[in-house]
Structures are given as C-alpha cells and as structure tokens.
C-alpha cells in the first residue's frame, strides 16, 4: 500500500529528480518543498511532484528558519513521510522538523520501502560495519536521504501541479548571516566519476601523491583518499574522502593504492563494479575485497604501471 502524502524537501536542485522519483514510488500524492525560483518548481512537477511549496531564498537568507512553518504545513496536510535531502542545511531542517513533529530523524537512509503498511528504512551503523533495518512507527516519518538511493524518472513536461509561493521571511531569531564565501580549494563531485583512484597511508609524503595523480590522469580517473589522508594529514580536502562519514561511491573502477581496506573505508566503494588494489602488505584486508590486486611497493610499481598504461 502506498503512503497517501509523501513530501520531499531539498535545498540542492540536483536532488530534485531522484527525490521526486522516490516520493512518487512510495506515495499517492507528492509535495515538494523548495527554496528558490519558479523554474525549479516546474522541474519538480515534471519530475513527479503534484504540488510545490516554494520558499523565498535570497543571498544571505538562512532557510533553516522556515523549519517551523514547514512542520506546520506537514502537520496540516498529514504527510506520512518526509524525505529531506541530506545536505548540511537539509540535515538541520530535518532535525528541527522532527522535533516539531515529536519524532526522530532517521538519517542517511540507503534504502527505503513499504512493508506491512510501514516505512522500512535501511542505513549504515557502527562505522559501516552493519546495515540496520528499522520499521518506522510515527505518524509522520522524517528521514534524510542522499543521492544514489533513487533513480530519477524521465521528465514529463506536460505534468501539471500546484505551486504555492511562500513570500514570508524565515523566522531566524538570534541568527544572522554575515558572509557567505566559497570553500577553499576546488569542489569535486566524486559521485559522478566513473573511475576513481583512492590513496591511503601507504604514501609517506604529500609530494608522493603526484604518482597517484599521474595514474589518475592517465586513466581519466578522479582522485580520492582514505580518512587519515583527509583528516589526519590534511593532504586532500574532506570532499575527496571516501568512507562511512565521507563519500559513498558506485564507480565502474576503484583503484585503491596504499589503502589497507578497513571496513570504514570499503563501505564507501563496496558497490564499485571492479576494485583494483596495490599494496605492499599481502595480508592487507584489501586483497580479500579486490578483483585485481598487485602485492608490491607502490613506490616501485606505480610509476611503471602508469608508464605502461600510457603506452
């Protein structure tokens, strides 16, 4: 049985297609909450929404301040399920709405379906060690969901829906946006990369990463890393970190270089079609999870491999 009213909320327009498809799959009537321009509302409707609440967003607005108002709409329209895109803002909105609705926010859901008239959500726990299945019990289920959980449907520009613009200001007592500045360093979207080269502690110095860069450029791959490289050494930005609290990817090929294969990292690439591993320790757990492996010192073998791949 489908849920009568399913809502999705996103501050990131790239998530509209997937969330709308997920909401469509689970619900009879789909409502989107967006914070932007008219044309995005049209897109949400083409992707499957029946109605859109469009909140005002200007440079320097703090959209989380709409949480209480959104919770009020959800309550009034008796939504059974609210899916919030798991950006930083989305997570805060989800938590605030959940508190307003006197329930929890189930987080970072990796699969979602209906079983015996209840929403069942799956998500990783214990640092990726296990997958937990939970049957939601509240009248309105609130959860956060990222990209890659649902597949977007083809857009149907002829679909019609109701758009309600909310022109009031967000309620932001005590919070003032002073400045928004671009993040230091480049932004990278590992999730769309078909090939990814990941580096780990097997690299002794930051400048040695050049060898991995060379391999990445020879193979057209994006560069990624394990947590110690991003958070311990800070040789790479956090957006390149793959693992349970970082990016979870589904590339065609993942090449793990100098990565031991700890579960917390591997959970981020378990869905790769092919895993290639290079590590000098033949007992490293990575070799139990790889399709192709080479036991060897990366300092010796990596330049040779890159050379031969280029040839």
């Amino acid at each position, binding site marked *: 049985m489908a849920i009568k009213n399913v809502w999705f909320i996103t501050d990131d327009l790239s998530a509209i297609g997937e969330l709308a498809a997920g909401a469509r799959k689970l619900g009879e009537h789909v409502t989107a909450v967006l914070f932007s321009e008219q044309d995005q509302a049209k897109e949400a409707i083409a992707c499957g929404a029946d109605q859109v609440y469009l909140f005002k967003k200007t440079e320097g607005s703090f959209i989380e301040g709409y949480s209480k108002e959104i919770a009020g709409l959800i309550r009034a329209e008796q939504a059974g399920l609210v899916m919030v895109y798991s950006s930083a803002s989305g997570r805060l909105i989800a938590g605030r709405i959940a508190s307003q609705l006197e329930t929890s926010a189930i987080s970072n859901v990796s699969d979602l379906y209906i079983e015996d008239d209840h929403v069942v959500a799956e998500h990783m726990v214990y640092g990726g060690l296990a997958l937990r299945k939970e049957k939601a019990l509240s009248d309105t289920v609130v959860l956060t969901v990222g990209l890659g959980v649902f597949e977007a449907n083809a857009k149907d520009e002829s679909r019609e829906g109701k758009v309600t613009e909310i022109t009031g200001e967000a309620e932001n007592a005590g919070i003032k946006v002073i400045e928004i*500045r671009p993040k230091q360093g480049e932004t990278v979207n590992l999730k769309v990369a078909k090939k990814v080269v990941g580096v780990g502690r097997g690299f002794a110095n930051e400048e040695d990463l050049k060898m991995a860069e060379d391999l990445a450029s020879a193979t057209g791959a994006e560069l990624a890393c394990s947590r110690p490289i991003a958070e311990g050494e800070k040789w790479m930005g956090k957006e390149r970190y793959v693992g349970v609290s970082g990016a979870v990817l589904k590339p065609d090929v993942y090449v793990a270089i100098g990565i031991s294969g700890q579960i917390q990292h591997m959970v981020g690439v378990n869905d790769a079609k092919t895993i290639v591993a290079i590590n000098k320790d033949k007992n490293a757990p990575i070799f139990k999870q790889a399709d192709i492996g080479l036991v060897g010192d990366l300092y010796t073998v990596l330049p040779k491999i890159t050379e031969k791949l280029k040839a």
Partner: protein
Amino acid sequence: MRIIACFKAVPEEQDIVVEKDRQLNFDKAEWKIGTYDLNAIEAGKQLVEAEGGQLTGLAVGGTALDSSKLKKNILSRGLDDLYLVIDEKAENADTYQTAKLLEASIRKIGEFDLVLCGAGSSDLYAQQTGNQVGELLGVPVINSVNKITPQGDKVIVERVLEDSVQVLEVSLPAVLSVTSEINVPRIPGMKDILAAKKKPVTEFTVEDIGAAYVQPTSLVLSTQAPEQAERKLNILEGDSEETIDEFVKLFNEALK
C-alpha cells in the same frame, strides 16, 4: 562562558566482531566516549581557556555510563563537572528520545551559554541529536560548525556547507554541533588524569530530571553486516616486468 558539552558512550568499533551469520558480537567491545564527541569537548575547553567560564560534561544513556574508567576518561579532558543520566530507559534511545532527555537534563542543570555536540555519534551517526535538542530548547541551533569565536553576548561561527562557508552571528544561548575538523582533541596528561579525581559527578535517573516517557520512533528489525560483493581475487605478487605487464593487462581490461 557556561558551556555544556554532550557526549555518548559507544562500543569500541574496532573490537566489534562480525560473526559468520553476519551478526555483530559486542562481547569484546569496551564502552568508550564517542570519537566525534571529543571534538565538542575540546571546542568547549578551548573556549573556556580563552574566555573563562565553566565546562560541564553531559551524557544520557544506559548502565554503560556507570563505568569508573569512562568517567575518569571524560573528566580528564578538562571538564569542571560532569552530569550523567543513567537509566535503563535511556538505553538504545533514538534521536528524539535522546534529545528529550538532554533537553530535560539541560533545563535541570540550569543556565547555559552554549551546548556543544559532535558531528554525530560514532555508533549510529544520525547527526541529529544536537539539531533536535536545539529545537526543543527553542534556542538558535547550528550544525556543521567549523569555528567558534566569542563576541560579547554572541558567537561568530563558521559553518561548512557543501560548496561554501557560511559565517553566522549567533546570539546566546545556542546549541552548536561541531565538525570533526574543528580541532584535534588533546590527549590528557598525568596532571589532567590526577585532577579528574577531584571533579564533581552528579548522577540522575530519568525521574530525577522530570522527563516524560517518549515512545520510540522506530522498531529495529535487524542489524547485520552487509553482504560482501563477490570479488575475482585475482591477486598478483612481485615487481618483475612480467608481473606488472600481467597486472596492467588486467587493469586495462577493467578500464574499458
């Protein structure tokens, strides 16, 4: 500044064993302070060191919290005092149940300027307790906080979003959840460990803080290690020309 840093007792994930039937075995896993909670405590400590004030530790949970080792450990991280709500009813609490208990505890403790939480608990990592507590307390609440600078009766915080950094002026009291990159938690020295013995610890039950029972949001159906994808395990060894040629051949096929 009056700061309350929240933390959670979690099983040491390195010692959780995955059994053959993919069930988890916690027999060897000792309870420890959540990894990301240490960033919240350190952030509080740095603010108190710079501005003066008081740093209080607060946790709600089951009997796992009633461990002298864990109490000593948390107190050696520079807390001035520690409040624990230890109750069977707080075991396996979901984010709303936890937030309700923390809300009641914070109201019981009294006045505060800042409540600090980590990025998420290292066992369930819902990243929601701070957000939910802030909303329940009805004060400004911000997540993903990467820098906190006091400014009179306000704080200036830097909040990391996906592609930008928001600089916010937040009036106090407020609830902030910090990132795991905001600082590197210091390791307690001998002096800190000795000082920990003199710090007051207050223990409450759920009744003591006057919290009403809240129904759980969900029923856990199963917690199981994910099925591993079948891999080809084509592992070569050595750095001879032939081995590398063979590896490159396989690698090239995969790249196609």
